[in-house]
């Protein structure tokens, strides 16, 4: 439960998907939870380079996230750290990993956002965490829709 995984099959070749993920032009077209505009998208696409994206939601609120590129293997893999600006929304740094695999119809994208509770996770060294929480979740949210989580 400290991580979230989403899989998408996209009818486009991996290099196009990779560029959509990593260029300012691409990011401006999709980043954010709703159809509000991306206000700023800066990327310095190299290991150790940084990105910064600011967007406005349809409710008028503005949010910014930034981080560092940790792995850049075009067109297969991208790893970057993630942090909300200001720290008021989510303290600490998390990890975003995206793997792209060529398939017949185009690209299979496997997206993972992990270390969402980094401090606690680091302290615990505990592998059983996810399973236990998952069971509890099943108990509490027995009727809710299922989603892809780890």
């Amino acid at each position, binding site marked *: 439960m400290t991580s*979230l995984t989403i899989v*998408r099959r996209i009818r486009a070749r991996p290099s196009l998907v990779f560029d959509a993920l990593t260029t300012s032009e691409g990011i401006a077209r999709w980043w954010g939870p709703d159809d509000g505009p991306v206000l700023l998208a800066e990327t310095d696409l190299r290991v150790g380079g940084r990105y910064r994206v600011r967007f406005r939601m349809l409710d008028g609120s503005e949010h910014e996230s930034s981080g560092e590129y940790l792995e850049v293997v075009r067109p297969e893999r991208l790893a970057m750290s993630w942090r909300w600006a200001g720290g008021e929304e989510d303290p600490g740094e998390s990890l975003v990993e995206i793997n792209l695999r060529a398939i017949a119809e185009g690209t299979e994208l496997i997206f993972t956002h992990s270390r969402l509770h980094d401090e606690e996770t680091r302290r615990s060294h505990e592998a059983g965490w996810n399973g*236990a929480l998952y069971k509890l979740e099943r108990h509490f949210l027995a009727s809710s829709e299922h989603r892809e989580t780890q």
Partner: protein
Amino acid sequence: MANYPEQLDRTFAALVDPTRRAILTRLEREHGVSVSELARPFAIKLPAVMKHLGVLDDAGLITRSKIGRTVTVRLSPEPMKEAMDWLRRYERFWSAGLDRLAAYAEGKEAEMREKGG
């Protein structure tokens, strides 16, 4: 976007410990267990168990009620639900974004094919 109330810190911090998770898992199965009954499977002394129960109580994950000399512990679902809701906001954030990303990349692919790329 994803508000992170202090309560979540307490919830996740409480869930980090394996003994506390074992206690919660047991309370998931059995509705209302006495403290001495809860302590039995563990190789730790009662005061240590009491300390864990204190953490779980502070996080709002359990309730304790005393009848006579027996303290009964019950699971309290609300903080767990909040933690899951918080994770779900992340999921919505990315899921909606990746849908648009897919549409954008597919448009690019179609353009390239038209150009014979």
